[in-house]
């Protein structure tokens, strides 16, 4: 069976800068996969290329065996890829509720969408409390919850999470990671990009190490966490 999401030898450029130099990875149904690397390794570019925000110059990107690399970002969302972007990018002047409504932009409003509102508010009770508050006035952690909740409103099959722990207090990071586990247990596959390698390896099943636009190592997370090179470079041990 074809993997849910599959990248093969993907090359992406920013102008003349060769940002991704042949990235290949797979995410299977129901899996949490993490992509680890230092600043500028190409983690965010990988996610942006999957979502169609950047164009891959060569290679293939497939969702359930069907090529999506020629699709526009809004079509890719419709096909089932949700993306909580780097820096959260919530709509600052809109309320929490309006942000979540935007997450369901492609869906007909109705009981199904209402049910998902309930689910997101169950996952993030804090968002329920702040339902009518302008998103831009919330704390970083709350905005992160909103960004994830908003991506969930589209009922994605794969959820791309870009640095959900960035700028958050350790206790909040724990909380966010518990929620990612919960989301995954309800059947959504997750591709998690993290600088916090320790946390990411603890959560995910498999991991890829990205260096200067190339996947240099892939393995199960338990093995990656024991690998001396990984420990030295990313775990600070």
């Amino acid at each position, binding site marked *: 069976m074809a993997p849910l999401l599959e990248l093969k030898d993907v090359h992406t450029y920013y102008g003349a800068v060769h940002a991704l130099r042949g990235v290949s990875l797979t995410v299977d149904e129901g899996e949490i996969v993490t992509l680890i690397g230092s600043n500028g390794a190409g983690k965010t570019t990988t996610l942006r290329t999957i*979502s*169609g*925000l950047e164009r891959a110059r060569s290679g293939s990107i497939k969702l359930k065996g069907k090529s999506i690399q020629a699709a*526009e*970002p*809004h079509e890719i*969302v*419709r096909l089932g890829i*949700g*993306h909580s*972007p780097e820096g959260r*990018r*919530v*709509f*600052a*002047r*809109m309320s929490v509720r*309006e942000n979540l*409504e*935007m*997450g369901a*932009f*492609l869906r007909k409003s109705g009981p199904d969408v209402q049910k998902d509102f309930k689910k997101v508010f169950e996952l993030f009770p804090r968002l329920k409390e702040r339902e009518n508050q302008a998103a*831009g*006035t919330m704390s970083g952690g709350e905005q992160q919850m909103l960004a994830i909740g*908003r*991506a969930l409103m*589209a009922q994605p099959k794969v959820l791309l999470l870009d640095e959900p722990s960035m700028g958050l207090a350790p206790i909040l990071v724990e909380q966010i990671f518990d929620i990612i586990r919960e989301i995954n247990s309800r059947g959504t596959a997750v591709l998690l990009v993290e600088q916090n390698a320790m946390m990411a390896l603890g959560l995910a099943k498999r991991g890829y190490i990205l260096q200067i636009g190339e996947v240099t190592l892939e393995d199960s997370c338990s093995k990656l966490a024991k690998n001396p090179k990984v420990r030295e470079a990313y775990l600070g041990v």
Partner: protein
Amino acid sequence: MVTSSATTGTAQRLAAGLRLPIGIVAFLALSLAVLGIDQFVNALTLGAIYALVALGYTMVYGIIELINFAHGDVFMVGSFIALFISSSLLGNDGSITDLPLLAGSVLILFALTIGIMALVGALIERLAYRPLRRAPKLAPLITAIGVSFILQNIIQFFFGPTIVSVPQLVPIEWSIQVAGARVPLLNLFVIATSVLLMFALQLFISRTRTGRAMRTTSMDRDASSLMGVDINRTIMITFLIGSGLAGAAGVVHGLYYGNTTFSLGFQSGLKAFTAAVLGGIGNTAGAALGGFLIAFVEVGASAFGYGRWGGAIVFSLLVIFLVFRPTGLLGSHTGDRA
């Protein structure tokens, strides 16, 4: 934001929310007292036209951060399309006193001109701006200036370089008495039409799905496309609406002044652009406010015998705002992008 300051925050927000309407009412009362009814109505009428044009500048800036220098010329082309429809298609050469006929003619004039100009605007976007979507910002800006020249030359080719007269369908003699002054119905019609269109636009932007897509796209294009918003379609609709409103302004201009010329877009367009900046570029309510403000400044200048300085005063205002309050009266657009 700390929770303990929530109550004072609400009070402050309320006060800030009231500051604007109170300011507007005070400004209008003062203007009425200083200018008298005649000039006051003139200023409102002129402001209504500026505001309609300013909306197109501000909507396009809001969504793609392009100062669409061709927009004033879209307004100008609209005035010529209206002239063509009115005189060549409908065969008018002066006012119409038969009310149903007048209403029908004006309705057709608005519908056709708005429709045609909306398509022209969308076409300009498709041909001139979309190919440059990922280019440095200077490229579409220069292209906009090029489009401006192209539109002027096309109109010059077909209608000549002189001022041409436009049939004034609404009889100028029709008027009502307000507090001893004669107020032409034409002015009231212009003001009412513009306010109606602006109101419709606000409703569209705040209530419809497409309106929400426009707002989120102007806040954050990438995030908006990750919600499933078709960015190209949204930008095109923005041009459709902005240019349609400029078309409406073109109709109104012809009916009100009874003439138009190929260089109309340059002068009036720059003033409408100034209006958009004064109101806070990217903010539709601000553009309307700025349009009226500039009209009052201009009319005020003429009322005191400085009519020839009107342009200078308006553009000085532009410079002052750009230096001291670049976000304009209502704008927070630049601040949001931090």
